């Protein structure tokens, strides 16, 4: 990971077909170039988003490719996400137990575990794990297609690459992230119970009843469905980074790295905003 990853350099600019040759050479002033590049990156992302959106809402729709991507993003990620969620649940259960025991308040442990998992840990872990697995996958795939000029070939064969490649992947991410989050929550709560009952036996039913005591759908649904935004970020950033790649194998590697790093970063940053937004809107 280097500085380029976070503040994209001028050569990471969007590789928009038909426009790539239009850019004149940049002046070699590093600071100005960095700032300029930063804004150009966002500008490119905006243009890219607009093209993808326009391609996505107009027919024909690429159902077959969408289903392939749903499987790729969703069901293929399930074991990873479930394992991560389970680990988080078990860790939370152990951590909360040791801190609650100091106050003699171990009876609220189920609530603490369930709330932590559902409100924050499940969605965040899912977002990070998926941005690692799917972000890298999309970034590398599209980048290699780009450098081997397959994208150009698709375009030549009268297929819109934004519709066929980008929109299907982004939509798959948006749709699958909440479902993966549910899976992560479920395995987290389950492992939280296992870790709890190993130390101090408690029935699963009792764990669930006390864990959900006083909770409302406001505590459950908004945190779960906010991950659709994470999906949008992962898909968009990964596709954008992949499709603007230049150079050979080195470019592919850089694109994959940048996809993961930027997607993870933006997921966490977006989470800050989303949590605040949920608190304002739903409380």
């Amino acid at each position, binding site marked *: 990971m280097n500085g380029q990853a976070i503040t994209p350099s001028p050569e990471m600019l969007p590789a928009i077909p038909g426009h790539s040759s239009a850019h004149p050479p940049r002046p070699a002033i590093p600071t100005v170039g960095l700032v300029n590049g930063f804004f150009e990156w966002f500008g490119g992302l905006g243009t890219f988003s607009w093209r993808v959106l326009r391609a996505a809402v107009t027919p024909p729709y690429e159902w077959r490719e969408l*289903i392939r991507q749903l499987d790729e993003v*969703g069901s293929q990620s399930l074991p990873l996400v479930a394992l991560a969620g389970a680990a988080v649940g078990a860790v939370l259960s152990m951590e909360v137990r040791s801190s609650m025991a100091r*106050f003699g308040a171990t009876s609220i442990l189920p609530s603490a575990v369930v709330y932590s998992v559902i409100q924050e840990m499940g969605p965040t872990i899912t977002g990070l794990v998926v941005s690692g697995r799917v972000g890298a996958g999309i970034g590398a795939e599209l980048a290699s297609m780009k450098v081997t000029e397959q994208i150009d070939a698709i375009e030549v064969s009268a297929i819109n690459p934004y519709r066929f490649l980008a929109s299907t992947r982004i939509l798959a991410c948006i749709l699958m992230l*909440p*479902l993966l989050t*549910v*899976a992560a929550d*479920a395995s987290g709560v389950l492992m939280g119970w296992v870790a709890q009952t190993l130390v101090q036996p408690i029935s699963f039913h009792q764990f669930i009843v006390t864990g959900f005591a006083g909770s*409302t759908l406001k505590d459950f649904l908004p945190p*779960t469905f906010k991950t659709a935004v994470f999906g949008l970020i992962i898909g968009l950033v990964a596709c954008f980074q992949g499709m603007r790649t230049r150079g050979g194998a080195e470019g592919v590697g850089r694109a994959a790295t940048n996809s993961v790093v930027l997607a993870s970063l933006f997921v966490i940053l977006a989470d800050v905003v989303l949590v605040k937004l949920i608190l304002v809107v739903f409380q």
Partner: protein
Amino acid sequence: MSRLARLGAFIFATLAILATGVFIIGSKEYLFRSTYQLKAQFENVAGLSEGADVQVGGVHSGTVKSIDLPHKPGEKVTVLMDLDKSTHEIIKQDSVASIETEGMLGNQYVAISFGSAGQGEVKDGQIIGSQPPLLMADMLKKANDILDSSQQAVQNVTVATAHIASVSTKIDNGDGTVGALVNDKQLYNNLEQTTTTLHATMLQAQSGVTDFQENMEALKHNFLLSGFFKRRGYENEADLAANRIDQLPTATPSKVFTYTAKQLFDTREAAKLKNQASLKAAGAFLADNPFGLAVIEVSSGMEGDTKQELVLTEARAMVIREYLVDNFGFDDSQLRTLGMGKQPVVNSGADWGTIKILVFPAGTEIPPPAKPPVSPSDGIASDLPAHASADSTSKP
């Protein structure tokens, strides 16, 4: 497994989990059951949050739907609750909502008490009564007050103990009156001596009283004073109650002799007989005919002091009885007296009073003797014959 099937299984499984979660939480919120709403108003909801439990009789029966701050100062915070329909039969107009805490650190919840059987049912959206929550801060304040006052009490006790210690030290040292009492043997001896002397004095006083009684008896027969007693008609007031009864027997008298006081007595106020001969008919009847009980019933007119007149009638009855017993032969235990005191005058010429001698046939039960009068000397006098008469009635 084909790609599509794998995707379908994944989506189905995660949606099933999502639905389960929604139902777990939704059942707590009573989203899928028929509910009704109640409101309660509190000055302070002590941190109660929306979605908190509502318990009826300790059973989770609803949730807090919303908590609204008042619009104006002086109004109360309104808590809107969704309650399960099944509680509608338990919660009545007089049910009271209160905010409780699960343990010391637990969640807040609303507890609603059962209503009384006679009260009407609550309506949807109705405001029910509420009880202010027990705030930790208030409790601590009260505990603080209690500690303060108990500290004060302990200080008082300490001071009191010091006083007691000082007093007992003084007593021990023989200071002061109690000290002297406790420590001075001389004082105790004096006290004992005094008691002994007092006892002897009491004995002497007793014999003095006996002497005095004898003197009084002698005085009554002394020529200077005998006139008074003669005019009064009797000597000893203690004798008045000797043969007195409380009320007439319920039986019907077989014979009644009626006299006016004017016929028999010397003056209006005295109990001295004048025309004893008038009583001869009655005396002869008592002597010749067997009877169960005879009662000399005397009443006076409406003039004079009630108490004095009562004594007068009793005295007259006694004097008549004495005369009859002395001059005619019959069983005198069957002749009783009854002083009626002031009674309304029935016929003219009887304004001094009326005397009736009522003769009851054999077998008439003798009524209980009069209650002991107020004066102690009378009481002692009337006690003995009372027992005697009671014995005679129980052994027919």
